[in-house]
């Protein structure tokens, strides 16, 4: 049986570990930001297509809508841990390896994209239909309506959705250690769980809380800035 290793001088302990903490924080931020970026790149168009191809919308196509909807549902029902492992071969195809921080970005993106798609879909469906009709009456094309009406009108809501996505991805990223992705979650597990180093565990949690708070505040700030109501 191992003893608790509670250092008598918490600050010296943290100081010696600070390179690890900083590295892990960067890894978490890197994984999150890049994944959110790619997830948005995939998810926003997907969400737009889900909306405009829906019944009665500007580009109704029920077949396409059903197919995309099913794909989104299937992806969303995978637990992240399993998705991460199952996507191994695909990850290797994309980034050339199945382990490491960069390799974690692939499953994070795939997990977050359908999430983004559904959030964007919800946001766009909230856009006042009268405004869409007015645009149609003015002779706007589908693309013009998407770019000049749907997306700008839904912007505050999309920003809040992106905030939720980012925070969710931070949560997922704590499991990255399983495939050697590093990050704060991994640090907490290695030190806190395996070595009973509660100082490190608590510190990583505090850092995560701060990151989440900052992201949420930024999201609220931007959403408010775009909200003209």
């Amino acid at each position, binding site marked *: 049986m191992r003893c608790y290793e509670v250092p008598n001088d918490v600050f010296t302990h943290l100081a010696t570990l600070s390179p690890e903490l900083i590295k892990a924080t960067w890894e978490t931020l890197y994984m999150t930001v890049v994944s959110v970026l790619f997830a948005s790149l995939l998810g926003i168009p997907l969400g737009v297509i889900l909306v405009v191809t829906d019944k009665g919308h500007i580009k109704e196509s029920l077949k396409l809508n059903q197919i995309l909807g099913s794909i989104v549902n299937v992806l969303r029902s995978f637990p992240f841990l399993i998705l991460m492992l199952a996507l191994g071969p695909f990850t290797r195809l994309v980034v050339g390896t199945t382990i490491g921080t960069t390799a974690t970005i692939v499953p994070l993106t795939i997990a977050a994209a359908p999430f983004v798609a559904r959030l964007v879909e919800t946001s766009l469906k909230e856009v006042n239909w009268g*405004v869409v*009709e007015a*645009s*149609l*009456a*003015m*002779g706007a094309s589908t693309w*013009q309506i998407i770019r*000049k009406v749907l997306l700008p009108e839904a912007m505050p809501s999309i920003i809040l959705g992106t905030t939720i996505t980012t925070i969710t991805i931070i949560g997922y990223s704590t499991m990255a250690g399983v495939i050697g992705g590093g990050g704060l979650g991994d640090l907490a597990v290695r030190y806190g769980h395996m070595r009973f180093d509660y100082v490190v565990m608590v510190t990583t949690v505090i850092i995560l809380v701060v990151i989440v708070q900052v992201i949420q505040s930024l999201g609220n700030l931007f959403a408010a800035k775009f909200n*003209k109501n």
Partner: protein
Amino acid sequence: MIQIRDLTKIYRGAAGEVVALDSVSLRVRKGEIYGIIGFSGAGKSTLIRCVNMLERPTEGSIIVNGQEMTTLYESQLRTMRQKIGMIFQHFNLLSSRTVFENVAFPLEISGVAKAEINKKVTNLLELVGLADKAQSYPSQLSGGQKQRVGIARALANDPIVLLCDEATSALDPATTSSILELLKDINRKLDLTILMITHEMKVISEICDSVAVIEGGKIIEEGLVIDVFTQPKHSTTRRFVQTIINTDVPDKIRERLLEKGQGQIIRLSFIGDNTAEPVVSSLVKHFDVDVNILYGNIDQIQDTPFGMLIIECIGAKANCDKAVAYLRKQGLRIEVLRSAE
């Protein structure tokens, strides 16, 4: 300018078929303001939305400025729609854009150059009296101001026709009048053809030249506003007319009709310049009768006075009869509500 022939629209839903429009035909001439009035569910919105194909007709033809609308391809339809302005009951402005940007929107859609957009939008905001609100957002405007933005936006691409879907129904009476005035002004200045739907007779009486009454998806009466107002044929039309002009005999007088009396009670209706007053005074002068005015009501439909007078003619029966005969010759509509004893 707009010609609708045998337009039928059937909505097919889970609950079965709804015939929203049943073989509607009408013609809107260039430069006129044409109003369509009807109660809720009559098919007004469906009708006006068929004009720019927001609603696909089940059958029939719609010709705008010589162009058959029902057979246009998508891209042709878009080009055509740029020339058909539309304003809405709930304004439908883009909340993420300023007033200026909202008016610029249709110009961006039709690919107008930036410098040209700036010039046009500035002029349009001037026209609708909102130059000082250019940088405001719709949420900062009153209903009337929002509709002014809607009007400026609808005019941006120099439309050949303006469609108004209950444009004043969300506004209070004073604001309604100012918006109607603006529309009339634009109609005169730009010689713009306007088709508007409404459930308020006031709107029709204030600015429309022609009117059609729609009920159950059918046009039940149609014609110049002044004619339809003064001689409504259908009971629904009469109900609408009565909402603004009381052509009914007031209750007080109705009671009096039942009482026995010596005089004849007569209702005179008049349109235009031949008002009843000089006629009444000459009755007294020439026929040796006394005239008692029981009730009077004068209204104005645009520039034409229109009203009625209920008088009691007291005197010898022969004289009264002669007086009535005289009145009939004056081009007034005469109804004897109670004959003399």
